[in-house]
């Protein structure tokens, strides 16, 4: 394990134990460690900033409320992503989200902004069972074992959905892929 990853993991363990002991500082530190990753993940599942902010906020609120269930055994990342995912799925089911245009908030070049928006729009059109593995494995770079744990499915099932999701996304992007290369 690289030094930085080991240090992060040890630091995370310390803060998880502290949170379980009721240390109010611990929640702030865990928020700082995960806020961006959870926001990115919920943004990619929900497709717009306002919903992603709400889902991120609710995820951390639930982490705090359920902190007695926490175990500092390395499964925290899986657990918090699972909470975020369940919230996003509920949101998608309940509200059938209004088709807002994908936020054009990229501060990079126009080409990169176009790329992000095009990919985001194509992802949003995919069924959630395909979108989820693509976001976790190809966009968040999560190992297959961990992504399968988040989704509560086996690794072969994850791989199968990933394969079908990649094919579906490729077909949706169609000729756009050529232009984006």
């Amino acid at each position, binding site marked *: 394990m690289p030094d930085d990853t080991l240090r992060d993991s040890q630091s995370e363990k*310390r803060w998880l134990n*502290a949170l379980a002991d009721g*240390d*109010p*500082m611990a*929640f*702030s530190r865990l*928020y700082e460690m995960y*806020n*961006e990753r959870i*926001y*990115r993940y919920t*943004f*990619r599942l929900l497709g717009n*900033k306002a919903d*992603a*902010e*709400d889902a*991120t*906020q609710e995820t*951390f*609120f639930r982490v*705090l409320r359920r902190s007695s269930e926490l175990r500092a055994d390395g499964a925290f990342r899986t657990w918090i992503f699972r909470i975020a995912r369940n919230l996003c799925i509920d949101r998608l089911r309940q509200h059938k989200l209004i088709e807002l245009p994908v*936020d054009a*908030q*990229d*501060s*990079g070049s126009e080409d*990169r*902004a176009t*790329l*992000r928006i095009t*990919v*985001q729009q194509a992802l949003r059109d995919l069924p959630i069972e395909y979108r989820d593995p*693509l976001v976790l494995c*190809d*966009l968040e*770079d999560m190992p297959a074992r961990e992504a399968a744990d988040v989704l509560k499915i086996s690794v072969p099932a994850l*791989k*199968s959905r*990933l*394969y079908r999701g*990649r*094919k579906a*996304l*490729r077909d949706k*992007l169609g000729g756009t*892929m050529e232009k*984006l*290369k």
Partner: protein
Amino acid sequence: MSEEFYQKLVDLYAGCELPEDLESALEKAAESDPQLAFEMKSLRELVHLLRSSPQPEFTEESNQRILMKLMARGVQLQSEEHSPGHMQYRLPIQG
């Protein structure tokens, strides 16, 4: 080749997860199979496109809005200055 095995190989190829020898063997097989060649090339390009796609930006405004909502629900957030004793281990100053 069974459909399942075929999928697995193509998927591993797309994610650049195949060992070098298997990758070469698959590329060799694709020379005489246009459908396989298309699947391999297009899926690998897609994975590369996704991995190089820019991340959604997490702005300070978004962060502040999330924090405000959490605080409005009674969550106490503390800054680093009030670090509790057990988190303040310090190494002796060297030199």
